[in-house]
């Protein structure tokens, strides 16, 4: 339910560890809702959802500490610098300053580390969101329109991050309308239409050997 309207009613989806799952579908289909639900930001009104082996309705805090959401907003503070925002994200999830600095270097934002978030461009903000996600060392990466606002180099950085995260066993779910770019990363695609999940055949893609870990049934 989203407010008084049912969202994702009847949706059934299992995602394997290490998978890069692309969520495609029209605007308003429920992609962002599904990502926010998996992040523990939306309450589950009916059905069941297990994220990283943890029941979302029982231990939402445990789930939140293990996931990272890169969404339309950065979740950052305008008056803090880039470095301060990433350090806060790292320390608030039990990680250190070194993790934050490493994440900043990974997305190529060291040059603007001392610039306030409020003065960043759209693309830099998107990179900062990625840095926050990396600094948290999440096991489930939720990316909502991750290509938006990124230049060519930024997209290369994003692809590198997604591929290495998946190689390290991190599960990635990404919702995108830039399907050509997103399909280069995805190991599987599902299409969401009016809250229903439909499999999209991808005969040329080979998924890694995964262990069942994440499941959502609503």
């Amino acid at each position: 339910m989203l407010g008084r309207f049912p969202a994702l009613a009847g949706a059934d989806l299992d995602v394997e560890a290490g998978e890069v799952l692309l969520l495609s579908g029209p605007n308003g289909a429920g992609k962002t809702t599904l990502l926010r639900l998996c992040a523990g930001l939306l309450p589950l009104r009916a059905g069941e959802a297990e994220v990283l082996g943890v029941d979302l309705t029982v231990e939402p805090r445990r789930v939140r500490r293990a996931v990272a959401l890169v969404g339309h907003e950065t979740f950052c503070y305008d008056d803090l610098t880039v470095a301060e925002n990433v350090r806060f994200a790292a320390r608030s999830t039990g990680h250190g300053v070194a993790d934050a600095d490493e994440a900043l270097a990974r997305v190529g934002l060291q040059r603007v580390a001392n610039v306030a978030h409020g003065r960043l461009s759209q693309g830099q903000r998107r990179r900062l969101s990625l840095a926050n996600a990396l600094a948290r060392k999440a096991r489930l990466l939720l990316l909502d329109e991750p290509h938006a606002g990124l230049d060519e180099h930024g997209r290369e950085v994003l692809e590198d991050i997604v591929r290495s995260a998946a190689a390290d066993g991190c599960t990635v779910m990404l919702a995108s309308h830039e399907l050509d770019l997103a399909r280069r990363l995805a190991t599987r695609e599902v299409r969401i239409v009016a809250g229903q999940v439909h499999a999209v055949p991808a005969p040329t893609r080979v998924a890694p050997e995964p262990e069942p870990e994440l499941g959502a049934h609503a």
Partner: protein
Amino acid sequence: MSFLRDALLVAGKDLRIERRSRVALQQIVPFGAIVVMLFAFALDSDRVLLHQAAPGLFWAAVLLAVLLAVGRSFSIEEANRARDGLRLSGLDGGSIFLGKAAAVALELFLLELIVGAAVVVLYDVTVRGVVVLLCSAVAATIGLAATGTVYGVLAGGLRARETLVPLLVLPAVTPVMLGATRSFQAALAGTPGDAWPWVQLLAAFAVLAVTAGTVAFGPLLEEA
């Protein structure tokens, strides 16, 4: 230990933002001073009344400034949906509450020092019973900051929060207004012994507000 460390992390973040933006220093503190000055202009013809009412006018000015400080504390969480970032951090709601309330309390202490100095000068007040004044101020400030923070998060996600916070906070802190005014009156009148029951009331209110806030803040953050 991790609970207190997380609270310090949140408090440090809020104070750093205030130091950088200077909203507290350049807007909230001057606002408190202006209120005190306006009372002085309004009651200037009756210096005796102004002198007698000084404790109440001081705390009325502080109370109005509390509304601004609390509003500011939660407006920084609304921009860029930083509130969702806080929720995603998995920090305990109680530690977030303590951190935010501590930051508001420190800003209020600064405000009280400056507004207090303005009251002494403008209202011709002689400072007496410093220990009682300090104890009252500490207990009252903690109570105000804790209560404001609880209602701040409650109204945080609502479109009408700017008008709702005063409606919720002002009635709730009536005991603080009463206790702080009476204890200040007794201290400044040179009868500090009469102030201690009011200081006890303030301390009890502060303990209650901090306890309730620590328990309730997490669920309120989720619901707002």
